[in-house]
Structures are given as C-alpha cells and as structure tokens.
C-alpha cells in the first residue's frame, strides 16, 4: 500500500548519491528487504519502475534481496530461521524466542558507471 512512497524514498537516496558523483550514472540500487518489513517486493518493484520510467534516472534497476526472519532462543541462544510461524527453538524446544532479524528495509549498495 505504501510501496510507492518507499520507492520514492529509495530514489531520494539515489538522487543524493548521484549528486555526489557528477558526470556518473547510477545503474543499479540494491536493497535488503526483511520478511516482516511490511513491504511487498512485487509492489515495490512495480512502483519503482513507474517512478523511474521516462526520467533521467533510466536505465536504473532495483535489486531486492529478501531477508528471512531469524529468531534467537532465550534459553540456549540458538539462532534459527523462523518458518511457518513456528517460534519454537528446534534445538531445545523453548517457545520464548526473540526476533533478531527480518524487519530490514535498507539500501545496501549502488552500481555507478563513472
């Protein structure tokens, strides 16, 4: 629903980076998108393409790296990927495990043609 706004925020960062590198073209921007970030990858990609189309940013590719949800066990500290909404620690069976990763919405890199 808010993916267009998120896409616009990514483009703000691209513009800022382009400004710092006059004469170069940014051809790709890579982001890390967590499983529970609340942002849909397809909608984000679609919104991004719409905003880039027929602007001087073209051609600009958005690469989305999906980041899975990880939990840490409060008892044995085991870290595991949470699948199928099962928070239980696969090592010791503890239910009280803490989410340690999966809400990322980060820009990780840009590819610049100098």
């Amino acid at each position: 629903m808010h993916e267009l706004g998120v896409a616009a925020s990514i483009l703000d960062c691209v513009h800022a980076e382009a400004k710092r590198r006059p004469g170069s073209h940014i051809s790709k921007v890579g982001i890390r998108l967590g499983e529970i970030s609340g942002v849909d990858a397809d909608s984000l990609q679609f919104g991004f393409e719409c905003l880039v189309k027929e602007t001087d940013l073209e051609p600009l590719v958005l690469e989305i790296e999906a980041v899975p949800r990880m939990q840490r066990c409060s008892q044995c500290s085991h870290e595991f990927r949470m699948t199928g909404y099962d928070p239980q620690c696969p090592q010791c069976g503890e239910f009280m495990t803490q989410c340690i990763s999966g809400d990322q919405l980060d820009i990780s890199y840009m590819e610049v043609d100098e």
Partner: protein
Amino acid sequence: MNRVEVEKKVLSENQLLAEHLRERYRESGVCCVNLISSPGSGKTLLLERTLERMAPTARVAVLTGDLQTENDAQRLARFGFPVKQIITGGTCHLDARMIGRHLEGWDVASLDLLIVENVGNLVCPSSYDLGEDCKIVLLSTTEGEDKPLKYPSIFAKAALMLLTKVDLLPYVPFRAELARENARRVHPQIEIIDVSSTTGEGLEQWMAWLERRQQAKKAGQAAATRS
C-alpha cells in the same frame, strides 16, 4: 562500473525524525504509545473510555490520524485533554514528520503520556517509527483469528495486543484462544489484554498497563538524570 556500499535505511529520513522525537520524550519523561489496528477495531472508542477514566489532572494528550475529517478529534476533545487531528489527506499511515509538525504549540515536557492513534490500517503503519515507546495493536472479535498470521509485521512489533469487543464473544464465531495463540506464534513475548469498551471489561487492566509504562519511563528518566 563501480559498486558502492551504502548501508542506509530506506526510510532514513523518517528514522532520523523519529529518533529526535524519542530523544524529546526521553528528556521530558513522556511515554508515547502508538495504537494500530484495522479500521473499525475500536481504537477511538477505547480512547474515549480511556480518557474518561483519567483523573482531570492527568497529563495526557492525543494525536489522532485519519485520511479525512476531524470526527475523531471532536469525539476525543470532550474529555478536556489536548487533542489534535492529523489529516493525512490520503496517506495510509502516520510518519514522524506529521507527529513533529502536530506537536508544535504543545509543551511536550508538561505531558506524562502521549497517545497516537494511527490511521486504521494493519500494514503500512508498522513500517514507520514515530519515536514511540511501544506500538499497541488492537484485534477485534469481529475480525478473523488468523489476522496475526496474515499481518505478522505489526503483531511482531507490538508490545501489547488488545483483544477488543470481547462482549460480542457469545454472538460471533471468533475463537479467542486461537487468536491469542496466533499472536504468540508471531511474537512469543507479546502481552495480551481482553477488553470491551461497551461493558468496561478489562479496562482497569488496560489503564494499569498504561500506568506501569509511564512509571517505567519516569524511572528511566530519573536514572538517566542521576548518572
């Protein structure tokens, strides 16, 4: 071609503003809670019941967000506490800039509790940090028990789930225990309180929860001042 590592949050501008707000709240010992739910889960009615139960001397204020109309602010203003409507004009969530703008003219330091009622939406508000101490999610008994599984982001981030409209449980096919179980599957540490704004059930517990959060904030502020 040159690859440049960036390491920046996509919503870094919002994040920065949210951190400023958090710092302001921390300095003044203000506890800020961010209420999030689907439209119609009972956020505004719960807030009416909440303000009604506050002592007249309570230092509480409310910011309430909607796409359009001042209706909610009008409903909440009659309890005599400061209330402001945030009209987003179509945006599906509140962001930190809107909060900062609407706090202008208010003496934040004179508050103990700032309640933010987000736009009715279970998805987008979960991505935007408003500088709050905690998010609170409402799930009503007229919705599905699987909402925590369908919209895990907000249930994973909320400190408290309020199960609202529990007075309707005898009349709806809602399985409350399953809803609680689903919420705990997404977030094992989530606290849960059952409430009914109609009968008043659970409201004492809810008020006590808010009070504890405020006390904890004050204690944290006092500790920070001493050190």
